[in-house]
């Protein structure tokens, strides 16, 4: 009568135990993930603890023997990577300037993802009129190019940081909502959802504790993709002057301020932030890609061998 009477060899289940750990293991085992994580750790590290190592304050002009030195000065003992358009230390401004890009894009992504997931789940679960209403609404937002939408909002109200997060978050939302709904529609039809309904489980619990855990893989992939895009959008907005305002240090802003430096023979003020933003987006997309491959099982065979 008891089916468990015959003990199943534990090894058979060791791999299956904790599906999440397994998936993360498969993700980590890929070179692309390791490369991505290295890049992200390096750049996030620069942004977070970089200021501790900055020789100057971000808005401080470099002086030698009490004398201000010239803008776009070449690298020297006083300024390791030269000075920017106002004679400030490029290295110090670079080390200080990552926090805003990272914080804003992360906040915008989280904000957009939370809204998008909630809307996608409700749409998939309710079907019918509410589904149509929500998803067509998402389509309307989707019709605006991401950058244009943010520009319109920020240009109308003014360059406020919270507004930046809000605008980019809102453009993130419909993309996440579509992916969520697409994945959840199939899960909603499964019997365990019926079972929870028949027990009288609350809608909120069904959405977030029955359905959501079954669609985490596509959502993680989508979130990493959205983060990648949002880093670029936030950097672009501050390049255009809608982000942090001068004299604050910010990677996007630095590129704009130091454009003439390229011609003046002092390229560091542009190259450093460009490289940082570029490598950061490559890093996040590599991690997302690694996870996506692990989730659909491309790497499983290799891992087992």
């Amino acid at each position: 009568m008891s089916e468990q009477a015959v003990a199943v060899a534990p090894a058979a289940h060791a791999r299956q135990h904790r599906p999440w750990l397994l998936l993360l293991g498969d993700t980590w085992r890929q070179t692309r993930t390791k490369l991505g994580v290295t890049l992200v750790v390096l750049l996030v590290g620069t942004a977070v603890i970089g200021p501790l190592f900055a020789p100057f304050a971000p808005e401080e002009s470099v002086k030698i023997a009490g004398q201000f030195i010239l803008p776009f000065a070449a690298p020297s003992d006083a300024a390791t990577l030269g000075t920017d358009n106002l004679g400030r230390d490029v290295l110090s401004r670079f080390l200080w300037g990552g926090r805003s890009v990272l914080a804003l894009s992360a906040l915008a992504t989280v904000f957009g993802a939370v809204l998008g997931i909630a809307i996608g789940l409700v749409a998939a679960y309710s079907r019918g009129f509410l589904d149509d209403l929500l998803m067509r609404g998402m389509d309307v937002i989707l019709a605006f190019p991401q950058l244009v939408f943010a520009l319109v909002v920020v240009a109308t109200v003014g360059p406020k940081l919270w507004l930046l997060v809000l605008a980019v978050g809102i453009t993130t939302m419909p993309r996440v909502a579509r992916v969520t709904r697409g994945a959840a529609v199939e899960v909603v039809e499964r019997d365990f959802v019926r079972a929870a309904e028949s027990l009288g489980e609350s809608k909120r619990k069904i959405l977030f504790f029955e359905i959501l855990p079954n669609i985490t893989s596509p959502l993680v992939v989508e979130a990493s993709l959205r983060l990648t895009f949002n880093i670029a959008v936030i950097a672009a907005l501050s390049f255009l002057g809608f982000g942090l305002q001068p004299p604050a240090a910010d990677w996007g802003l630095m590129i704009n301020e130091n454009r003439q430096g390229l011609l003046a023979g002092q390229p560091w003020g542009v190259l450093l932030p460009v490289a940082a933003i570029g490598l950061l987006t490559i890093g996040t997309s590599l991690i997302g890609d690694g996870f996506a491959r692990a989730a659909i099982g491309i790497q499983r065979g290799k891992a087992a061998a």
Partner: protein
Amino acid sequence: MNGDGRPTLEVENLRVELAGSGVDIVDEVTFTVAEGEALGLVGESGSGKTTVGLAILGHCRRGARLAGGEVRIDGKNILARSPAELRGMRGRVVSYVPQDPTASLNPALRIETQLMETLTAHGYGSSAEERRARLGEMLAEVLLPSDRKFLRRYPHQLSGGQQQRVALSMAFACRPHVIVLDEPTTGLDVTTQAHVLETVRELCKSHGVAALYISHDLAVVAFVADRVAVMYAGRMVESGPTHQLFRAAAHPYSRKLVQAIPDISGRYALVGIPGRAPPPGHRPTGCFFAPRCAFAVEECRQTFPPVTQVSSSHDVRCWRAADVLAETVLERIRIEAAEREQRGEVSLLAARGIRASYADREVVFDVSLAVWPQECLALVGESGSGKTTFARCIAGLHRQYTGEVILQGRSLPPGAGNRDRESRRMVQYIFQSPYSSLNPRKTVGQIVAQPIRLFFDLEPREMRARVIEVLETVALSGTLIDRYPDQLSGGERQRVAIARGLAAEPSLLVCDEITSALDVSVQAAIVELLAALQREMGLGLLFVTHNLALIRSIAQEVAVMSEGRIVEFGTVEEVLESPRVPYTQKLLSDTPSLDTALAAAAG
């Protein structure tokens, strides 16, 4: 037999292994099938039946490798052939009928195109005329029309039975010498199944084909096969003439399989097989069945038994075969109908004039039924009869109905969400497929705890103890509490689903085809469990099934449903022994029965 007197199909020491690790999936499989003979290959899922079936076509699934032995057709080893030669042989010399006919039919092509394709691909006949004539013949053989209207149809315009018969006619199209039928009737209704089985038997006999019939349904095998081979964990453990094998099996596993089959002809106690078959790579030294075997002795755990002959055509691989055989002829335990308790005034649950529909289509018409406390009412019908919809109305899963559902005298509104907590607790529904009804992201503990959390106030520590207690009522170990559903077998999953239902301490359990996704031996164990629960906990059961044979072992009353209406109602004995309605009579005569099949073969 061919001219030289050899069997058409000979399989010798076949070994298929996992490509990477070299772990055996099946090994030491040896059998022969003569011209015009049908060999039934039986065993639980995962026993390697399909692997053997595919190997006969020189094929194996991805990740597996044909690693040894010979498969000879007309004396020639096909495993030594090149892929191109094999492709030429498939369909012409050896053909295959899969379980799911939709897998073998192209949904985008008309029936005519597909059938003609089979003939032209193998160069049958010399002209289009000849092929067209053969096409008509083929369809006539499987009792399908061959008029233009039918030929112009697409597969989705045919019923499941018609699709399977088209697949059969394709398999027989080029008059192959060997045919492999892999559970071709599993997805079909009993009536359709009976037709298809009759067709298979006729075709094999009239064409002199050597047939390998793979199935886990012994009653079906008893009907079509001349001889039967039993597989367990990748080894062939017994083979012999059908009658002898089912009536005097020499291997304990074969005996257990027979005891697990429900039969309409008598009220037998169903006996499940404890434990589960070891998967490839985890098979013990010694006899693979030893851990589950009541006969096992030290020798069984040391070495795998060799093939021994019981009689000239009956082989077995068991050290204790003599003792197994000595233990009288295989006797099935008959159980008598229990004395019915005096019924109270109020039924547990009554449904009055239920009419249910999906959108505009009505599927249940005016159904009234009552379930009494501590009794089991079986609701039987073919697919599409509306039985599941009715059950879902009762459980509050389907809202679109009119009529009244009355629970202990109180009328319930449609839809679980509109019902009060107490009535939701009292009626619990067990779903057909435990693969879909358990959330793969939740542990067994979380699943079973859900109703406890919703209906009872328990401290976390009491909760865990209660979950373990409920798991033990369904004969699962409390150690499974932290497992995820995909770490469990089908039977274990269905037990977890039952445990979730029981955790609510219900008065009525609605079971919707709960064994149809499971192996026969597991089905027996589940039915055994439900019958015990019903007795011990005083549960009322509404047991929805398409399997008439099963209800003997569990139900007291039965309602037969057809096209949304109850066509017959009575006690199980009345309905099964003297059915009044032609529909029930037909259903009964089409239900395969081991006893009847064996009696017919003997007589």
